[in-house]
């Protein structure tokens, strides 16, 4: 059996376990509410957003509905993967797995892919449902490129949070620490990042929260590259010609690459040194 095939088999086992677990059944209503639910809400023809704005393209509706991904899907990714390693460590299974002649890097890759797939399967299914909802409500389809970017960037942000949760799981000796770390990272980037942006703006002498101030918009745009949620929105904004926050598309994709590679590398390194 080739290494790749072995990795995919182990990943498939993790995916199957997680998809049939009770945890996903608990999270499904949340995902339903946050993904197609938000798409339904933002595609209302009579909706008026703050500032009197009305979304007028399918991609714009999907962009606003991506709030559901940021709040719901990423949290579910953390909840799905927070005990990916710590549970096995607590039960002694980690030692059994590490004693198998499968390189630890391969085991780490299988772990990442298995957990990412287990959350991406329902997320992609519901994203597809969201697109159908938007079409039903607005009568518009997103273009193929828009759809690809939307799916890819959503996949990436969910993948990043899966990586964070697994990384936390390798460091935690018990479940409580693992979930606290995973949820803590999610909370920081989802809720507290605005505070960080504000503080940096204040320290830089930029007028805080002035949506029409180019300096504020540029600063917020650059700082968002340091947040996975920010990068996610930058990627989506590449398909919104009316939005310009001073960040080039290549910068967004480069940041996405770094957010993918660095935690991936860190997790592989952790797995190499992991003591059961």
């Amino acid at each position: 059996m080739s290494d790749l095939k072995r990795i995919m088999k182990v990943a498939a086992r993790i995916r199957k376990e997680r998809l049939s677990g009770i945890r996903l059944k608990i999270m499904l209503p949340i995902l339903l509410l946050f993904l197609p639910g938000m798409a339904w809400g933002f595609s209302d023809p009579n909706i008026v957003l703050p500032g009197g704005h009305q979304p007028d393209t399918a991609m714009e509706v999907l962009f606003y509905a991506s709030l559901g991904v940021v709040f719901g899907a990423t949290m579910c990714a953390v909840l799905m993967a927070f005990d990916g390693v710590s549970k096995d460590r607590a039960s002694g299974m980690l030692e059994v797995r590490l004693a198998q002649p499968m390189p630890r890097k391969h085991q780490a890759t299988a772990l990442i892919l298995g957990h990412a797939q287990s959350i991406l399967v329902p997320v992609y299914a519901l994203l597809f449902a969201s697109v159908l909802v938007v079409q039903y409500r607005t009568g518009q389809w997103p273009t193929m490129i828009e759809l690809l970017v939307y799916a890819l960037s959503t996949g990436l942000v969910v993948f990043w949070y899966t990586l964070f949760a697994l990384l936390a799981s390798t460091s935690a000796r018990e479940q409580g620490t693992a979930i606290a770390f995973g949820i803590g990272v999610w909370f920081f980037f989802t809720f507290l990042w605005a505070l960080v942006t504000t503080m940096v703006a204040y320290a830089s002498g930029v007028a805080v929260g002035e949506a029409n101030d180019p300096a504020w918009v540029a600063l917020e745009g650059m700082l968002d590259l340091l947040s996975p949620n920010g990068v996610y929105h930058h990627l989506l904004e590449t398909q919104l010609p009316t939005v310009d926050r001073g960040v080039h598309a290549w910068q967004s994709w480069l940041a996405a690459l770094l957010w993918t590679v660095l935690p991936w590398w860190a997790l592989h390194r952790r797995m190499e040194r992991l003591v059961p």
Partner: protein
Amino acid sequence: MGLAMAEPVLSFQSVQHRHAIPAPRLFKPWAKRAGPGIVGLSLDLYEGSVLGLIGPNGAGKTTLLRMMAGVLPVQEGSIEGRFDGQGWQPVDDLRQWVGHMPEQVRWQGRTTVYEALSQLGEMRGTSETKIQRLLALVGLRSRKDEALDNLSQGMRQRLSIAAALLGSPKVLLLDEPFNGLDPVAAEAFAALVRTLASKGVSVVISSHMVAQLEGLIDRIGLLHRGQLLDEGPLEDVERRLGLEGRYTITGQGEVDALSFAPADDVLEHHQDDDGWSLTVKQDPQSVLSAAMKAEANLTSWAPVRPNLVEWLCAATGMSVDDISLEVASSAMLPMRSVEVSEDE
């Protein structure tokens, strides 16, 4: 396989693994230093032999087994193996050759026994036929569709040993395998170990309960504070440490049993309403003669093995009080060195 024919299959030379323990400094709070572990250990494992690795809690038994299983890295020293009829060769990945059964794996969940083993088999590329054979070998074939949550402790241990045997290992490491087993399950487990040894597998069993290994092991290794104090065939180590020829003689009635043997030779003496017992470290013949001369009512005499504390006292040259049974500190005490002849 008889001991005389046994050949070494795996050799560890001056291997070391010391745990990294936190040693925070003001400007480097993440700093670590080398703590306790295994230091300069050399050990040969023989085909078809069962080595009992004994030592108190914190002696380093689990660390040594994890190192031998390839789970912990060997920081210093070398490992050579002689598998598949080839000559001695450096071993890069021990996990190819060694099966490891960790202490107390909590198999849990709705996964079935067969699925659990198959999942591990995927990591090795083990065939389904092999998995079925293993389940039969460990006596779990009739339970293969049972959920892990429904298994008894004995069955979980059997599943653990099946997992360790997935790769048809030349060396099998069992970490405290008797923990939590009732006597019936323990005997069944011991029988399984004997079967594997008879097929040429080199088995290493760690335990802090020497009595559990009685009749199962043919070699013994004494581990204390990360160092192997002595290792070899059971009788040889006993002889080297002056622990051979111990007998317990029992009888009924109230007699002055202490008068049957010189005071220096008496290791233990009990007297109660049911009778008496005397453990001596000499040939029982003279004791039996003295007892018969005193018209004592003898009921039995049998050889006895030393217990863990006696082994360690003899190997370290320290008293019971001096031997700390706490977790070893990073300071490695110099131990009494015991010569091991090359032909062992």
